[in-house]
């Protein structure tokens, strides 16, 4: 059985989340938001971290594709 590559899904979800949070952090952060999080623009920083995570997974999936070793068959039924 050949399942799709989970790393791409992780890259997609966190890429999307990261971009949304960065945009909120840069453009839509109120003073009240900042005060709540002790002056840290947490949306911006968390967004950057998520974009980075997304990039790591995307790079990993590109560099080491899932089905490089076609000689190895998964163990089938008993």
């Amino acid at each position: 059985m050949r399942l799709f590559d989970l790393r791409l899904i992780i890259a997609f979800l966190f890429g999307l989340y990261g971009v949304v949070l960065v945009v909120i952090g840069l453009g839509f952060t109120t003073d009240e938001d900042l005060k709540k999080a002790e002056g840290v623009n947490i949306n911006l920083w968390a967004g950057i971290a998520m974009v980075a995570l997304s990039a790591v997974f995307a790079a990993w999936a590109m560099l080491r594709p899932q089905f490089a070793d076609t000689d190895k068959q998964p163990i089938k039924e008993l």
Partner: protein
Amino acid sequence: MSVLAEADLRLDAGPIDYALLVIYFAVVLGIGVMARRSVSTSLDFLLSGRSLPAWVTGLAFISANLGALELMGMTANGAQYGMATVHYYWIGAIPAMVFLGLVMMPFYYGSKVRSVPEFMRRRFGKPAHLVNAISFAVAQILIAGINLFALAVIIDALLGWPLPVSICVAALVVLAYTTLGGLSAAIYNEVLQFFVIVAALAPLTIVGLIKVGGWQGIVEKVTDKEQLSAWPATELTGIDHPVWSVIGLVFGLGFVLSFGYWTTNFAEVQRAMSAKSMSAAKRTPIIGAYPKALIPAIIIIPGIIAALIVPEMAQLKAGDTSSGVAYNDVLPLLMRDLLPNGILGIAITGLLASFMAGVAANVSSFNTVFTYDLWQDYIKKDKPDEYYLRIGRLATVGACVLAIGTAFIAAALGGSNIMDYIQALFSFFNAPLFATFILGMFWKRMTPTAGWVGLLAGTFTAIFIYAISEPSFGIELLELPGQGASFLGAGLAFVVDIVVSVAVTMVTRPKPDSELVGLVYSLTPKKDRAHATTGEDAGWYRSPALLGGGVLALTTVLYFIFG
């Protein structure tokens, strides 16, 4: 978990938070739809065709355990008991996970069994198998119901949806992706859930730490300085004498309870069985052990911080219960106080994701045991594989419907105190199971009769200790508050199981050696226990023993720094 005080916990979720939540659920369902395309046999559906890489199964292994009760319970313990809570993660998990990978996986994976009960059947025959399969199936449905109820309570508190609606919606989502994609979808989603949970808890911890003044701030502000050190954990165990408290922790939690849970609970072991090779199967629990060792940083520390900075929590800790909050409310309260919209949506998503992970793990292990161990073994044998694939799908639907039922029972019982007890009870059923397994794996003489008699004797011991130590039953012969009673119950159940199994073995007939090849240590050739070290299993960094030693060393260092 007590009934949450709603008005206090209602989060100020905005459209953007809901949007992030909806995106997540769309991806979760998408994984189910995509995974469906690679399901063509029952083994694909129930065991992912044994094709998954170790990092996926390893993260799923840990995520399957990061359910509602774990997350709420351990942040609550952090707030209530402080650093002693780390024992649940370190001594209470890491050694057992390494042991599962290095010592037990060769038999589970090498013998090609499809479930833990199936190992039981091959080693001890039908009576032991039936006891194990039925009790596991029943436990999974009950625990799925508890998880579902906990999930509904939190949705109700956070977002204001009525309980029945959230129970059904959550069950439908889990049902949709597990019926479509089977274990693969459950496991892929568990890995995704792991990252979302971390993405939810890490910002919360960081902002909390800044607010409280860093680790130094915690050290200064915690009034009960004993809570800053993990040992001797007298509050946690309920055992006043420090030496006995440590012995209780090491033997009760560190050995019997934790080995019982991690090595015989099929909801966990199934993740390793779905790995694509012996090496990947051995590495599964060990890879999972690394995040397990580190995750207390974003679970227990928020708990400790909440007790310092959330006014209601500080009141509760000082003994004032008037605000109506419970220790279980740590995460929602912190989210309310610290997170602005945007990251708040991620945190809500992470919390709901974690709760669904628990339910999905229960359901996906239930359907395997039901299909292979109950239906195929006792009801309809020798049908073509498509038949069992269909039964697997139907079992998933059945499990979700039954779990909705048990969730409503939990709701009707008024809060989940009783369900917590059921959970505790099942958790120490694992102790005798572990005794039987470990004896059976290393002692070829052990007989089939000893298998089931020992198991029953151990289980009844656990129930007996529970009955005479639980205050609400009114026959309180043993006074052990905290976790002491379950440590003692599990320890005694283990000992009784071993003693009874040995005694029964002496007077009954063992199985011939030829039937035990691959199941017992002395009868399994070394090459059958070894893993390949070529292709995708090559490289020193993929050595299970090295990785296992590494995580044990890491845990020791962590104990020296934070213990």
